[in-house]
Structures are given as C-alpha cells and as structure tokens.
C-alpha cells in the first residue's frame, strides 16, 4: 500500500502527499433515500479528522463507506491512494470499473480499523480472545505471537487485569477499550470511530476518549464521528461539519467550531454546546 504513495495519484493533496483518505463526489442511496449527496473529503496521513453533524446527516454512513460496510452509489474513495472496492480497467475498449472479489475487499478492510458505537465485541470470547481472533484468522499469526500482541495492546488501553473477562463482565468503557485494542491488533494504517462514546454512561466516556487521545498522539490517522465537541477542539486537526448528506464546511477546529462561516454550523453548535 505504501508503494502506491510514490506514484502521483489523482487524489494528491496540495503538498503532493497522498492523503490517507480521499473521498471524491461520494453519493449513497438507500432505496430512494439519497443520504450522501456528493461528499468530498481529504484526511492527511497522521491527522485526526472529527466529523460532526446532526443525526441523520449521513456522517456514520460516510464513515462506513470508507471501509466498504456500505457500498457507494457514485464517486470514489481512495485509501492511501488505493481505490476501494473496485479495480480500474478497460472493457470493450472503454475504461470500466471491475468490482473486487470479496477476498480482496477483505484485504483492504484488514488495513482499516473500525470501532463501533455498540462495541460489537464477540461475547463468546474473552477480552484476550477478541483481540487474538482476527490476528490468527486474517494475518495468519501463530497463536503465541497473537497472544503476546494482544497482551501488549490490552495493557496499552489499561486493561491488563481484564484479559480473561468476557465482554458481559466488563463495563461499557472497558468493552470499548477492548474493541479499540482489537482493531489495533491488525496494525491498521487508519482508524475509523463511529460514535465510540455515544452508548456509554457519562462517567465512562473519559476513559475511552483518553485512549483515543493517546492513539492520536502516537501519530495514528483517525476519522472520528462523534458528538464530543470538547474532544474535537482538543485533538482534531480537521473538523468536518456535515448536514443533509453534504459537507457543509471543514477546516481547523479553531475556525469551524469557534467561528464557523456557515449558518447551519452555527445553529448546530448553538444547540449542542
């Protein structure tokens, strides 16, 4: 994947660097509902982008399109310069998109970590088992190596004393931290967070945001859909405000969240702050 960075991709940013994520004119329909209406977004490597917006604005859908949990209807998504879900080719003399085999889609997804609002831990496996599983199944690591890595990551999220607990025996905040460790175990180049603290009791939000803050400080590229304005102000390099399936405005959080240009952004911030 990193080799693709050498070639000047069409999605190259102003500095010539290939952004980690580039969405170009992405549309998404659910039946007749037009939920994404042309999303353009670039997430530079090593940066944190926080996506904000009212519910129903399409921000979760946009995030899920990046790792192909949702199929896009129009436009293109590139991750580290690589087109997601399709291969460009020629058919009957004309350029055409060839859908990737599910096996190749799985390979693309394996490099993108995802954290869900409802954790989605595997309830029949312990915390350790959750972090080990995909390392063995997808990366073909041997069990001992995978377990060592899992211990390391659970320690990093502050759960070294909870490795043998089942998800039902963990608090929401602990479950979400296991979920973050599980995603990190795949050594992703990009981490997607879909409202990671929205299902948590208020007093448990801090521990999850703390882990995410550390992760951002370590240089991980992150796209975070959240309602935590404070987190966005503090950690984000880019704030993206979405409404009605479009990006209304984006820029440094100091501008977008403090002195927004658009009325819709101002209205939203006035409601949530």
């Amino acid at each position, binding site marked *: 994947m990193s080799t693709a960075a050498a070639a000047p991709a069409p999605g190259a940013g102003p500095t010539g660097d290939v952004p980690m994520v580039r969405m170009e004119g992405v549309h998404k329909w659910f039946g007749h509902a037009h939920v994404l209406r042309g999303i353009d977004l670039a997430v530079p490597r090593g940066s944190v982008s926080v996506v904000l917006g009212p519910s129903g604005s399409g921000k979760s859908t946009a995030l899920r399109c990046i*790792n192909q*949990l949702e199929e896009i209807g129009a436009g293109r998504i590139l991750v580290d310069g690589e087109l997601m879900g399709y291969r460009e080719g020629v058919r009957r003399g004309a350029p055409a998109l060839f859908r990737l085999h*599910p*096996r190749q889609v*799985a*390979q693309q*997804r*394996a*490099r*993108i*970590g*995802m954290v*869900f609002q*409802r954790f*989605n*831990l*595997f*309830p*029949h*496996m*312990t915390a350790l088992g959750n972090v080990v*599983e*995909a390392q063995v*199944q*997808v990366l073909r690591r041997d069990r001992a190596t995978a377990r060592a890595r899992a211990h390391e990551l659970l320690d990093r999220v*502050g759960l070294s004393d909870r490795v043998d*607990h*089942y*998800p*039902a*025996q*963990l*608090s929401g*905040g*602990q479950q979400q931290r296991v*979920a973050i460790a*599980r*995603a990190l175990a*795949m050594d992703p180049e990009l981490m997607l967070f879909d409202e990671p603290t929205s299902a948590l*009791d208020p*007093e*448990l939000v*801090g*521990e999850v945001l*703390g*882990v995410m803050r550390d992760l951002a400080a370590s240089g991980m590229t992150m796209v975070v859909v959240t309602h935590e304005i404070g987190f966005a102000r503090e950690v984000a390099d880019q704030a993206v405000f979405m409404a009605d399936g479009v990006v209304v405005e984006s820029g440094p959080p100091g501008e977008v969240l403090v002195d927004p240009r658009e009325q819709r952004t101002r209205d939203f911030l006035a409601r949530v702050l």
Partner: protein
Amino acid sequence: MSTPRTPAGEPERIHAVPVRYPGRWVSAAVVAVLAAMVVHGLVTNDTFAWPTVAEYLFSPNVLRGVGWTLGLTVGSMVIAVLLAVLLAVMRRSDNPVMRGVSWTYIWVFRGTPIYTQLVFWGLLSVLYPVISLGVPFGPAFAEFDTQDLVTAGRAALVGLALNEAAYLAEIVRAGLQSVDPGQSEAARALGMKDPAILRRVVLPQAMRVIVPPTGNETISMLKTTSLVLAVPFTLDLQFATNAIGNRTFQPVPLLMVAAIWYLAVTSVLMVGQHFLERYYGRGFEGHRPAGGRGRQAAINAARTTPEAPVVDDMGRSTGGPTGGPA
C-alpha cells in the same frame, strides 16, 4: 418518620408474620393421594408382573436393543446436525440454486411422514437394484449392488437422519438469524472472510439458541427409532421387547422394560444437554465464574468512576476508590 434503631444504632430489620396459603396445603394433599393411588395400582396389579420385568430388564436381547436404539439416535443426530448446518447455510446463500435446493429438501422431508420415508428407504433396492457413480447418461465409474450397500441398519440410520435434518435446518436457521448483525459486521471490518465469520463468530453464538431445541429433538429421536421396523429393521429396543413379549405372551411387562430403558436413556441425554447448554452459554448473562452483580460489579471493579454509584448492603455509601485511567 424516623426508622426505629437498635441499641447499636443500626436500623431495626423487619420481622413480619408471613402470609398463610391454606390452598397450597389442600392441593398438595389432593395430589399426594392421587399419586399414592397410581403407585398402588402399579404395585398391586399382577398383570404388570414386576418379577418378569426384572427378569428381562438386562437380558441380552434387550441390552442389544438398547445399544442399537442409542446408536441409531446418536448416529442419526450427528449426521442430521451436519446436514442441517449445510442446509441452513444454503438457505441464506446468495446463490438462488442453493436456496431452492435447500427449500425443496426441507419441503419434501418435513412434508412426508417419517414412517413413509423409512419404508421408502427399505424399498430402495427394489427401486434401484444397482447404484452406479458416473456421468449422468454417460459412463459409470463404480457400481454397487443396492442390497449390499443399503442394509437395513444403514437405511434406518440414514432415513432417520435425512428426516431429522429438515427439522434441524429450520432450528439452525433460526439460531443464525438470532445473532446480532453487528457481530458479522465487526468481523468483516477486521478483514475476516465469510466462512471464518460463520465458523468462528456467528455459529458459536447461534449454538446458544440451537442447543435447547436440538436436545429436545434428540430425545424425540430416541423414541422415533421405534419406527425403524418400517424399513424393516428389527434389532432396536422397541422391536426386541415386543418380540419377547409376543413369544412369552407377556406384552405388558415387556412394555414396562422398554419404557424403563427409554426413560433411563432420556435422563442421560438430559444431563448431556445441560452441560452443552452451559458450554455454549459462556460469556452470556447468568454464567459468570466470579460472583457479584455483573455489570455493576465490573464498573466498580474498574475503579474508573470517581465514586461508587451504589450503596453497600449496610445502607452506607461505599465512597468508592478514586482515580484510574483518565
């Protein structure tokens, strides 16, 4: 209003007089009398011939019948479970041919009586005297004499299994559907492929839903094996005891022998089911190795909350530990 206090200063506990339920005593007495009447009827009626029951309970033919019945039950259930998982997965397939085949299989095998099916498998050698493997309408690679290949025992085993698979397929399908779609979504996001997701994530969780009705089906199968005389297969428990009963003109005591054995095996199967349910219930509510009230205990043990949000059973705020990961 202030709570009365003990000399030690603690609130005085409630010691109330319990409510009396005379109806419970009356109904218990009625049932006890009825039970005594049943036992009396069983013991004093000479036609049950309990000495004869004892005589034949462990006779070689009966024990061989128990062995065959147990073997047919376990063997056919194993085959049926494997086939049922296959049918259930085919039912969920994106391939319409797979879906159609699965649907048709379930339709045919659930829609005809097991007795009819067993008679059919017994008559297979009349229908197809020779079974050959090869290209349809083309050359054959191997040929088998159906009489040798499909013995009565095999016909009984496969006949029971094929019928049962149709029922189990629906149970498995319901189990697969019961698993939260977020589970396979999380697995997909990790880059896992569909077969691994089914095997490692979805099926183990579906088992929690699948095992109880399958245990029920196994116990039902134990008794369905008595129908294998339709094949005809004549070594199972029901046929063995029946044969002895007819020979000695004592049908009732031999019926009792069969009933006792069926009950005994059912009891063993129920124990097995209990342990299977416990295994597949691991990690779910109600099965915790350690004590404590689950999630609340976990939150407290995590020491991430500034103050314990619950009070202890003495009524005092525990004023929990502070600090923890920020």
